[in-house]
């Protein structure tokens, strides 16, 4: 079964930024969350997948077709929304809906009406009167109502109030029903990714730092509090991402937790007080801070 997205050795260079050797696969029917700080390359990656920019090297295959050669065919099936996208301020939402409907035969007017109510948007209002949150929802409505096979969403919930965020997640959750449809979205709201993504890709400095299914990714991370002293040997253990000590306790965070971790700590003379999983947000911050100190 051809994957929804297959990137091999993709490179892109700008003056002050570059994407290096990106290998990424998104199987069909899955949701992938893209995590990374601002400037890590998330938006560049999404634009590459849309055919808006052309890679300097490597292969970009979306829905089984090569980009940028097949960009028109591919864009027919993709719904793309990004932070820097704006609609025509002088036109109404209804005008935009009619325009999209004229371009895409898969437009589902009934579903569009449902979304209008759910998102609480007025179709006869001109876009200049929309708040930020309403504008984002309008853009997403225009995409969701087409039932595209692949959704590329750049920060879909960023800047939205909690109610609007819930509505957007609801619409994203609708897509899960169809095993032929896939989603790749980037978000600072790591809670969104933790909740709805099947796999997580971590981007930092233009490189893929990690790309794994969510459950096993989260399974590998633990925050462990022990009694003892923090030694260099401890800090040097593979997978240890952060060590903090506040006598008599030592807190460590590891990204390589397995059956051997606790016995190893024991052998080093530490007595384990508590072991807990880490939320994605904590993993994200710990990883980024760790790479700065490296």
């Amino acid at each position, binding site marked *: 079964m051809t994957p929804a997205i297959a990137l091999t050795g993709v490179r892109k260079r700008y003056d002050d930024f570059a994407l290096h050797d990106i290998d990424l696969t998104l199987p069909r*029917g*899955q*949701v992938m969350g893209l995590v990374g700080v601002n400037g890590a390359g998330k938006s560049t990656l999404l634009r590459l997948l849309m055919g808006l920019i052309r890679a300097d090297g490597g292969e970009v295959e979306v829905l089984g077709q090569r980009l940028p050669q097949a960009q028109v065919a591919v864009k027919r099936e993709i719904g793309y929304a990004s932070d820097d996208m704006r609609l025509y301020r002088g036109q109404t939402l209804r005008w935009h809906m009619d325009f999209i409907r004229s371009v895409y035969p898969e437009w589902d007017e009934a579903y569009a009406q449902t979304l209008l109510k759910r998102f609480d948007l007025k179709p006869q209002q001109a876009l200049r009167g929309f708040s930020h949150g309403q504008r984002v929802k309008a853009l997403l409505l225009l995409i969701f109502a087409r039932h595209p096979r692949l959704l590329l969403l750049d920060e879909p919930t960023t800047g939205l109030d909690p109610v609007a965020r819930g509505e957007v*997640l*609801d619409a994203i*959750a*609708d897509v*899960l*029903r*169809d*095993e032929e449809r896939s989603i790749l979205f980037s978000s600072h709201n790591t*809670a969104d990714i*933790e*909740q*709805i*993504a*099947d*796999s997580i890709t971590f981007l930092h400095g233009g490189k893929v730092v990690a790309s794994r*299914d*969510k*459950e096993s990714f*989260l399974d590998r991370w633990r925050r462990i509090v022990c009694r003892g002293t923090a030694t260099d040997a401890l800090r040097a253990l593979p997978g240890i991402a952060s060590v903090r000590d506040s006598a008599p306790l030592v807190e460590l965070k590891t990204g390589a937790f397995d059956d051997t971790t*606790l*016995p190893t*700590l*024991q052998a080093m003379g530490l*007595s*384990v*007080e*508590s*072991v*807990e*999983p880490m939320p994605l947000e904590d993993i994200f911050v710990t990883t980024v801070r760790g790479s700065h100190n490296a």
Partner: protein
Amino acid sequence: MRNELLLSPHSSVPMYAQIVEQVVAKVMSGAWQAGAPLPSIRELASDCQVSVITVKRAYLELERSGVIVTRHGKGSFVADALDATRGLATAEFDSQLQGLLDAAARLGMARNELLDRVGEAFDASPGASQSTTTSTDKGTTA
């Protein structure tokens, strides 16, 4: 008809475990009857707004405990009455076992010591002489 489990993203219990607990609760209470079909993985994921992979993991656990059975190509079903009861007990056992393992880990207890302690406790318990070693079901946990 939406199947909505009552899940909390903020709980310290991992999401897949919450799903397992709630399905077990539904089966125990009879809300989901023996032999009844379960919602498909995708349906449940969509209704609860959780990822498909999490629901898959939960279903796998439930199947391992015998609470549900999956028929290839047809979906998952609540196990038959007798199997379900045993399955529920197994799920309870698994959950207790995990708690035991967590406690042992906190003490830094090695495998051998743990097994020794379990063996001693087993020998000392009232039901010791009765049970024979019948480990017929899904194999032993590592």
